[in-house]
């Protein structure tokens, strides 16, 4: 009975994480399209939600099981997954409230690593895996996207420089619809799968699925796709404002090159099997397309805050995951601790939704 209840809790919290992943990362896909008026805010978000939903069905390889190669597999229990998910949700909500784009995947990995540290100690964390799969890619992604987008905008300005601005702007806006669609599809395939992986892992740990060849149940695919699409449709306006207009004021050509270069980097990484964060890539590309036009066009203070959020993601989500795990164990090893944590999380979400209603009006194109 306790194990069943804990499984339901983990599934519920995993879907809640998926929802926060959707609204937190919506900005990556739609912010530039909105700020350059390629699409209206509501259309951009609806478009991204549909493509995220479709993207979740494109591939069902659950190879990206959470934190694989980063923590010892034997250390990952239902309680650890639960604490890791709560750590990731809390960090996603904090960075959303501050309007800062940060990686949901890194938050999830950080939460699980923190919970494993609290449950099994440092020996259960694979340092090389953490360095190779999280820290070095986090350095590579924004620098590479910055460079490619910066060179791309120079090429674009060179090629279209002497043409009338009207047709050029309309052309790049059309290109943004397509490049934004590619990004939304890529996000759906990558990030909805992580939730599918978490729920599948929980079902294996519970004994519902065989550990030798676990197949992802259809309800897991549909619920994960729906949660990320609903989250996307709800729209993280605070981060959209930051990505769309607070880093740089972009024109249609910059919007297209940021999205096009971002999509190229993400798909190249997908093809090579190299783990890069969508958030890091798009943020770097937006800065690159602004800096190549004029260094002072980038608001470096905002860029610095984003970089600080990236650095803090792993330790902050990890600390939250560790505290949640330790707090849960105060109530014994059963389901009581996670139930109390889940209740506190729901209260926090209700409070945040009220705060959002009061302060967070949709952005208009700038």
């Amino acid at each position, binding site marked *: 009975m306790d194990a069943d209840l804990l499984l339901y809790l983990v599934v519920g919290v995993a879907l809640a994480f998926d929802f926060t992943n959707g609204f937190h990362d919506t900005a990556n896909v739609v912010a530039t399209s909105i700020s350059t008026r390629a699409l209206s805010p509501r259309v951009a978000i609806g478009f991204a939600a549909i493509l995220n939903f479709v993207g979740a069905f494109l591939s069902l390889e659950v190879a990206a099981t959470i934190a694989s190669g980063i923590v010892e597999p034997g250390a990952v229990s239902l309680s650890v997954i639960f604490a890791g998910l709560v750590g990731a949700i809390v960090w996603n909500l904090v960075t959303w409230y501050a309007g800062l784009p940060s990686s949901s995947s890194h938050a999830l990995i950080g939460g699980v690593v923190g919970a494993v540290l609290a449950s099994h100690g440092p020996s259960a964390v694979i340092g090389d895996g953490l360095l190779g799969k999280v820290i*070095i890619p986090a350095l590579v992604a924004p620098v*590479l996207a910055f460079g*490619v987008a910066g060179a791309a905008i120079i090429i674009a300005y060179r*090629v*279209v420089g002497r043409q009338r601005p009207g047709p050029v702007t309309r052309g790049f806006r059309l290109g943004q619809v397509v490049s934004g669609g*590619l990004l939304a599809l890529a996000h759906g395939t990558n990030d909805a799968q992580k939730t599918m992986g978490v729920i599948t892992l929980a079902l294996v740990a519970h004994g519902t699925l065989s550990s030798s060849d676990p197949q992802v149940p259809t309800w897991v695919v549909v619920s994960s796709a729906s949660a990320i699409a609903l989250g996307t449709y709800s729209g993280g306006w605070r981060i959209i404002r930051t990505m769309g207009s607070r880093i740089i004021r972009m024109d249609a050509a910059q919007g297209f090159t940021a999205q096009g270069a971002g999509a190229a980097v993400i*798909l190249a990484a997908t*093809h090579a099997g190299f783990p890069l964060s969508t958030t890091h890539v798009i943020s770097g590309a937006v800065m690159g397309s602004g800096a190549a036009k004029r260094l002072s066009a980038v608001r470096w203070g905002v860029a610095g805050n984003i970089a600080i959020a990236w650095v803090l993601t792993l330790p902050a989500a990890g600390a939250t995951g560790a505290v949640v795990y330790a707090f849960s164990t105060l109530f014994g090893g059963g389901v009581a601790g996670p139930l109390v944590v889940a209740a506190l999380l729901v209260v926090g979400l209700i409070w945040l939704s009220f705060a959002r209603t009061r302060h967070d009006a949709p952005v208009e194109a700038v």
Partner: protein
Amino acid sequence: MIPAVVDGDALVQVIWVSIVAGLGLTLVFSLAIAAGARAGQARRSGAPGEALAWSVLTVVCGLLCMVAVALGVVVMLSK
């Protein structure tokens, strides 16, 4: 130290494919826009031959962009 923990071949591949694909896509799409604009100018100034040439370049570049998008979807499907 770093090569021991990172897949160096994958990293090099990501870098060069990103540069080629990102810059190539931008170049081809920008050419499509510029050629489309020039085709319009040529039509307005009564030069149908020139307009046709620019229109052909627009279509070719547009098709290349569509191929790039299709390739992107294939990469997603085949991962």
